[in-house]
């Protein structure tokens, strides 16, 4: 059985459906990226998994004894507690024994890079520090399932890099479900992609599966001048598109292969700037899938 099975999950607020008929599974030890525009229902979905919200219909089944850690998008802390006091309390409330809790809290705070702020009150924390503390409270009890709502969106590029590395190091013994709109990062750490829009799941699968469905691989030949690109297009009967100084050849069953293209270019002694193989980035795929609905 999967670690988490979500079947026909629906959440309704009055007439409005925040999440509708969502079905997916999380396998043990995998990372899943939940991707979608604002208002797609990502936070609602995560809140239901964290047992903060109860579903209107459908069901969530978690493996027996599954421990969960949750990081909200904007974690709020009691401003008069220090980082260590808060993290220790979080550990204890999640069932970590009193003796172990403090040690585990200190280790976790060091792990997220807050070793210099153990005794600082959280009221004086910057946004980035709050995000790190939020991660610390989510992992301090070593949960088997980690739910993260936009864990890196509020961070600067350096912080983002660090937190991504931390998350990747957790992946070995933790199953992670995280929402994000920073798709470069999703591409980096994902075994499964879930695209949501208007409360629906509109595309899912592994990165490879999604890419093979939508990536549209192509070969770009770049010329010195736009006129040369147009001339090349006129002289060849390949399936292609001209855009400013380049031609884009589609690579599919009836399209051309790199070998053919290179052979043609060299035999014709074409004077070009470069040739490259391109696939759509996750961001382009996302925009295309969302627009296609």
């Amino acid at each position, binding site marked *: 059985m999967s670690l988490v099975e979500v079947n026909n999950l629906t959440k309704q607020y009055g007439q409005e459906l925040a999440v509708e008929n969502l079905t997916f599974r999380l396998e043990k030890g995998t990372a899943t990226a939940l991707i979608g525009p604002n208002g797609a229902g990502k936070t609602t979905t995560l809140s239901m998994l964290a*047992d903060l919200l109860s579903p209107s219909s459908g069901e969530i089944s978690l493996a027996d004894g599954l421990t969960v850690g949750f990081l*909200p998008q904007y974690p*709020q802390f009691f401003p*008069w*507690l220090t980082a260590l*006091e808060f993290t220790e309390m979080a550990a204890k*409330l999640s069932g970590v024994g009193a003796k172990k809790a403090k040690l585990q809290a200190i280790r976790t705070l060091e792990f997220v890079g807050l070793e210099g702020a153990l005794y600082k009150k959280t009221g004086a924390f910057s946004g980035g520090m709050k995000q790190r503390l939020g991660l610390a*409270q989510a992992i301090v009890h070593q949960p088997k399932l980690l739910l993260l*709502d936009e864990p890196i969106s509020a961070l600067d590029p350096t912080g983002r890099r660090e937190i991504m590395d931390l998350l990747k190091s957790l992946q070995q013994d933790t199953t992670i479900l995280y929402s994000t709109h920073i798709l470069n990062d999703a591409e980096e750490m994902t075994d499964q992609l879930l695209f949501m829009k208007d409360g629906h799941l509109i595309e899912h699968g592994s990165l490879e599966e999604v890419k093979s469905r939508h990536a549209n691989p192509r070969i770009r030949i770049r010329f010195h001048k736009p006129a040369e690109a147009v001339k090349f297009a006129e002289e060849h009967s390949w399936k292609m598109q001209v855009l400013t100084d380049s031609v884009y050849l589609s690579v599919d069953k009836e399209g051309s292969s790199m070998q053919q293209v290179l052979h043609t270019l060299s035999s014709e002694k074409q004077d070009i700037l470069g040739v490259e193989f391109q696939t759509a980035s996750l961001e382009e795929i996302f925009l295309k899938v969302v627009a296609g609905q």
Partner: protein
Amino acid sequence: MKQFSILLQKEWRENIRNYKIFWIPCVFILLGITEPVVNYFMPQILEASGGLPEGAVFEFPTPSPDQILMAVMEQFQTIGIVVLILAYMGTIAGERNSGTATLLYVRPLSFLSYFLSKWTMAAAISLISLWLGFLAGYYYTLLFFEELEFSALLQMVGSYSIWILLILTLTLAASAILPNGGLAAAAAFAVYLLVQLADGLLGANWTISPMKLPGYAAAWLTGNPRLSEFVGAIGLALLAIIGLIVLGSWAAWKNKAKTKV
């Protein structure tokens, strides 16, 4: 109950660090001292404020010590209760609205422990304030007026403590039920006034009404209330407190989805 002690430690830190543990007792001590002091210096105060015709002579009846302490209780009944309701109206609603509750609610939290930890801390501070206020008032009453038996004071404050706990528990339950602290305070005041009005209009024969507790408490100063009525009122008040604790814990759990995520 393990969670109770963890959460109580949090409440303890909160009430120390936001100074509630200092300023609430200060308010009650001030209120307690004011009555005997103002009464004692009344002639001088009137003279200093002027406006009295030359040669006017006023005879002030010296108030008895029980009258002074009853006046202290009246201060607590109005200003004291307002202070407590305002201080604790946001206890649970405030945590939900700021989102600080979220990181507690996503854990396997016992909402009874959660509510009880807040109740215990608020009750401790309120009762300490109440006792310090009455003791300060009692001290100045002895200093400026006549003797009053200490045991009478203990009986009075002990009975009145149950009343204050009832008001406080009502406030905390309202904070668990309603969406924000302002509404919780308004509801606590409304319930307080309505029940008092109902008791005044219809309660003439209902002698074991918890609403009569302040009156019964005051009766200890001059003698003693009718014991069967007094015990009945205390018993009902305790039942109401337990009921409100259960209701508050349930409402805190029921409203957990309303915390800001």
